[in-house]
């Protein structure tokens, strides 16, 4: 599968890291995430596990986690959103419904906008939680 992914994605892969035989991390450009997920999920048949958003000093980082169950390999696709004032990325939810909830969660927790999401509304936070206050952003100071 490692070779398959390298071959299918080619130059899209910016930074390939094998932290162990079962843990593979790589980075793609944010403009190419939908195409990358499409290849991994639809063509290569990986299972989408979840996505995780992190607030780092330089950028917002979203990692899309995929599992290749037959070999027990785990692929984590990293996307960096450098514009911290207006973080946005294309939504992968139109490709398959299993990604809808997690994008809603990242949107409300970190304020990352998913362009093209079919139903971007709050999932976990209460209705009266203040607009524009994102709990998982690291506050300065």
């Amino acid at each position, binding site marked *: 599968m490692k070779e398959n992914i390298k071959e299918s994605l080619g130059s899209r892969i910016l930074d390939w890291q094998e*932290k162990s035989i079962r*843990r593979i991390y790589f980075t793609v450009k944010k403009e190419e995430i939908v195409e990358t997920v499409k290849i991994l999920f639809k063509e290569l048949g990986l299972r989408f596990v979840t996505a995780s958003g*992190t607030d780092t000093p330089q950028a917002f980082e979203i*990692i899309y986690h995929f599992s290749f169950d037959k070999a027990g390999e*785990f692929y984590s696709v990293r996307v960096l959103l450098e514009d911290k004032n207006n973080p946005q990325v294309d939504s992968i939810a139109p490709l398959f419904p*299993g990604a*809808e909830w997690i994008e809603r969660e990242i949107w409300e927790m970190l304020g990352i906008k998913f362009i093209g999401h079919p139903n971007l509304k709050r999932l*976990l936070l209460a209705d009266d939680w203040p607009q524009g206050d994102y709990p*998982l952003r690291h506050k300065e100071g």
Partner: protein
Amino acid sequence: MSHKVIVPIGPYHPLLEEPELFQLHVEGEKVVDIDIIIGYSHRGIEQLAETKHLDQVPFLVERICGICSSSHPYTYVLAVEDILGGEYKIVPERALYIRTIIDELQRIHSHLLWLGLAGHFIGYNTVWMWAWKYREPVLDMFEMITGNRNNYAMFKVGGVRRDIKDEDVPILKKALDDLLPAIDMFRGAVMDDPVIHARLKGVGILTKQQCIDWCVVGPTARASGINIDVRRDEPYGACDRIDWKVIIEKDGDIFAKTVIRILEMYESIRMIRQCLDKMPRGEIDAKVPDIPPGEGIGRVEAPRGECFHYIKTDGTNRPVRLKVRAPSFMNVASDKVGAVGGTISDATITLAAVDPCYCCTERVAVINKPDNKKILNGWDLIKLSQEKTRKLREGLEK
């Protein structure tokens, strides 16, 4: 003229731990759409974890769920150990076996609990009482090993906190032997009862493709012929040192999900027995070095499916980010396809079939939209479900 009615199920249920609100859109008896609203018990644990020491977090994540309360700490310690090179590199052999024993005991008690509730929803209240009666000795085993019936506090990075005493092993084996006839009885009750066949077969079907698209995990996926199980795909603990098999069914209906859970209890008993026999002597925890900056991923097959933790550290003693994804997060979302198209009397069991931390039926109310008049409450909906079973039984007896 079609007349659309919205049936809210939820959000509070005093019996179980997780409030959810399902709004069923019904036309006559048929469910045509469903809105799932969650978040009532969002406690900000991911954010809270960033303020705790790496050693304190297992206690925190243990409290995410009261039923699979060993899955989250286990997943978390696996994620931290992943940064250090993996579980097998640092954890002593004996601790691996103890970890698997705890993990499998928890699967038995969780499946029994689900079986009881499923029985209650379809009007088999005896099954409910029996299943919970036989769950009791499992909790006693937990108490014997860990001192607690729930929230065991067994897992720490590098090993486990408590050993299993030699004199306890025969008592545990005896308790497992006593459990077998009970599970035999449940298997007979499900497999041989024509009413249960009529009630559960062909209901709430998830096709294989739907399972893939909604990314469901655990027994919900395995009931639709998807061959996944983290214990085999990415072995942890003693799972690769003992003999057991993954249970797969093809039909994707609630009957298949029930069968899977019952047969998995047999496998869990087999696994625990082998662990008790093969467990070597030795240390139960290792000295853990400082956790370097890095990223780790842990995965455990919880009773409901794959539990996932992602941790990022920066070399201090606190995590920078802890992402938790419980199996129900994927499975509950799939109710959208499971329940739509069925009848309202099948809705409770369909929503319960994925074994969410299900908690809502008590506060169900059917409201007739135009005049906002309440026509059914939660108990009525369970009664509706039980009534259907009764009628089926009478029909079969004639």
